[in-house]
């Protein structure tokens, strides 16, 4: 039986009908219709479904939608205001060629946002270790690491 819950997504309240075992990812994508975060593995390994909840990156496939009520959730759609004012991380990913197939990109960017908010001055080794929770199969991570370094510098300024 579906029940109505309220999810705060990108600053707006969404009233959605969910099944008790709907994951947050199901609710965001299938119920609220925000398809930016991706469905890659269902077991929290690939990171494609990463969103930010109350300031921390979470894998939305690993939590139930009902337990996300009352939390402030940001998805890739909420990272920038419109498409004209891109976030520095988005800009860096675009400019450094860190995007190929792009399926990992929204989750990767949301993780990096949360990571750089907590660690504004990471070393390259720290970035490599931090990114180990997000799989990319296209880029070999090289240009993603370049983009994260550039974004960190831009965000510090």
């Amino acid at each position, binding site marked *: 039986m579906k029940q109505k819950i309220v999810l705060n997504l990108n600053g707006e309240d969404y009233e959605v009908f969910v*099944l008790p075992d709907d994951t947050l990812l199901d609710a965001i994508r299938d119920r609220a219709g925000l398809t930016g975060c*991706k469905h890659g593995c269902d*077991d929290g390994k*690939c990171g494609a479904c990463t969103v930010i909840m109350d300031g921390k990156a979470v894998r939305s496939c690993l939590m139930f939608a009902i337990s996300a009520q009352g939390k402030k959730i940001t998805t890739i759609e909420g990272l920038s205001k419109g498409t004209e004012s891109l976030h520095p991380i988005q800009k860096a990913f675009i400019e450094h060629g860190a995007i190929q*197939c792009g399926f990992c990109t929204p989750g990767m960017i949301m993780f990096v946002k949360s990571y750089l908010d907590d660690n504004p001055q990471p070393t390259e080794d720290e970035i490599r270790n931090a990114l180990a929770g997000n799989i990319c199969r*296209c880029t070999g*991570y090289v240009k993603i*690491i370049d983009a994260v370094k550039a974004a960190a510098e831009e965000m510090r300024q």
Partner: protein
Amino acid sequence: MDKKEVVMTEEILESLKQWTEKKDSYDVIGTKTTRIDAKSKATGKAMYVEDVMLPGMLHAKILRSPYCHARIINIDTSEAEKLPGVKAVLTGKDVPQVYMAAIECRDEPLLAWDGKVRFIGQEVAAVAATEKKIAEEALSLIKVDYEELPGVLNADDSIKDGAPQIHDGILTYEGWPDGELVPGKVKNNIAYHAAYDRGDPDQGFSEADAIVEQEFFYKHVVAAYMEPDGCVADYHAGEEKITLYVTTQWPANIKDNIMRNLGFPQNKVRVIQNAAGGAFGSKFMANQLHHISALLSMKTGKPVKLIRTRTEDFELVRSRGDMKLWMKLGVKKDGTITAEQTKILMDNGAYQFLGRRRSLHQLERSDATYRFKNVRHDIKNVYTNKNTTGCYRSFGDAQMAWAREILIDMLAEKINMDPAEIRLKNAMQTGDVTVNGWHIKSCGLTECINKATEAINWDEKRKNKRFKRGVGIACTCHETDDRSTEGFGGSVSLIKLLEDGGAQLLAGEAEYGNGAYNAFAMVISEELGIPADMIDVVAHDTDRVPWGQGATGSRVMAQGVNATYLACQDVIKKVINAASDMLKVKPEELEFKRGKIYVISSPDKSISLAEVAEYAIRKRGGSMIIGEGVDERWDTELILKITHPTHYGRGVDSTYYDTVTVEVEVDTETGEVHLLNVVVADDCGKVIDRRQLEGQVDGATVQGIGAALFEEIIWDDKGQIANPNYTDYKVPLAHNVPPIQRIFVESIEPVFAYGCKGGGESPGIGSIVPAISNAIYDAVGVRITSTPMSKEKVLLALKEKEGKRI
């Protein structure tokens, strides 16, 4: 080898000269640009197949076999059909008695209508319901009675007398591709067997001063692309038309199959691909899910979404299967390889799919790496009760390189020659005809070897043995072409010139993450002087774009770029004609340069592309300027000679080469291999999109590192994959990536625009894996001959070498 064959004909030399002269003159080609689809991907706006949401859409799930080999005695779907929310249930008896797409044979029935399952996970029934979870629940209500049959899980056992027979009979083509399907017998589960000599291998081995032989094993690995395969099918009952949203390398193949197998005319099947989340060879042709979602949509009259879970994708993806290779090489003291012999056993899984064609392709490509003159090949492609294999960033090249490149190191050691030197001595050269009759029109292998060894400081590092470190080398040849059909095998692009001077490209080739569309846009920018933000590459839609051959064998970069280049030239010709009409000047008195049309006699006067486009559309009877570019095969006399039983003389458009050198450090306590440095020299032809090529090289190299060190699909003794997820099947993560130095060797390929050919793929598919094995030997003196080179395997080899037990 026929000495009389001239590869570099006058026509080819003229083309080579033209592209060589121009190679440093471009404004856009070879530069780093911002990928045209990057912004939509960075903002979450790009639409992948699972993002397609249609009104009234149902969700489908598939019931799959729990046995690796069984007969289906009965299927009872009555309880499932009663479940509220269930709209349709399909089993083999409800579907057309057709086979899935395969090359040169038919053996895989749609939804097991032949009453047999041949691997764990094979599709048996399907449900469409209003919710994914209702569909899942309905699966648990379907009762299937199976008669379990003995299974066979590796190729060695499968070919033994008395092994369980997996196929009673299959259909094969007599005189492919025009011949009829005829019943063929399968004996000892051997689906295909090719054995042939080229040259005189007996004589070759008798001339050798040293001979080495070794058995190798390459373990099944999967593409593990980020976006699981899936389809949304939308049948419109009024129009009797079906639209499929897909994620694929070859939309036209899905259209062809749905048309043929489900009985639609050409105009009633539409296949659309917006963004796609990677493929790497493993989303190649139509498969079961396209047919099943289409049938469910036809049955319910509603759109049906069918997306694999990650586990389903691991269990169903058609990737790079287990292969056992025995290889023997003979060499003279001066390093000249005199003969090669192979015996190969390929575990193809339950169905053939591409197996037949791969068997010959892998041999041909391997034989195009070095100047082999005498070869003896024996390859068996074998059915087992495992999931069907296909291709994953190569068509058997990875496995061939694994055996060949380690064996060449063993050969070098035997005659006390440096491994780089023996490769230089035998490297293929431009102008060669390979032992299989391939014409090599561009080859930068020698330069790759020289540059890759220099960059890693080869001579110094081979000598310095103070630490447990070593360097290794390997080379691979990959083919830019890989045609699967007779007849037209090129590429078509159409460019519409818009009235503001922008352009819209309709390409026959699909974009699935590889960056093809950005490369095509760069070609338009270069040739027509149109800025990137005024170019639109239309998302693939078979109702709008020309037919395409599919992204296989790195052909899109070469043939798609060539077609787009030719379309630009057609646009220029038509623009000149329209401008001549506008200005009342003869066409030959006009010149097109960087987006402007000049009167040659008064070069300060010009008109813009926008003015001409607007004139054509608004003032000249509405005839928009549309340029057509058709990349046809250069060497039509060498068109695929499939009638030759073992392909001798099959034409190849171009071949590209690479050399990888690696430096490793081995932990002798744990067996762990640390990669210190990787150098990739890629003979990719003229670079088109430098940034994307760099990314492709990085990505392929890192996938190769995964296959080398830890990736492998593991089956239990019942035929169940034990690690069908990212937790247990380890792919490289950011911290696994060593420093990678990329070197582009731009040997100009005469048959394609700019001298481009495929690139980025071959180092990772082929070279890095054996290069690591060779480096381990250089470091600690143990030869690893099976993948992956796990720390346990390396440690065991070290202990064995010391005569110790562990």
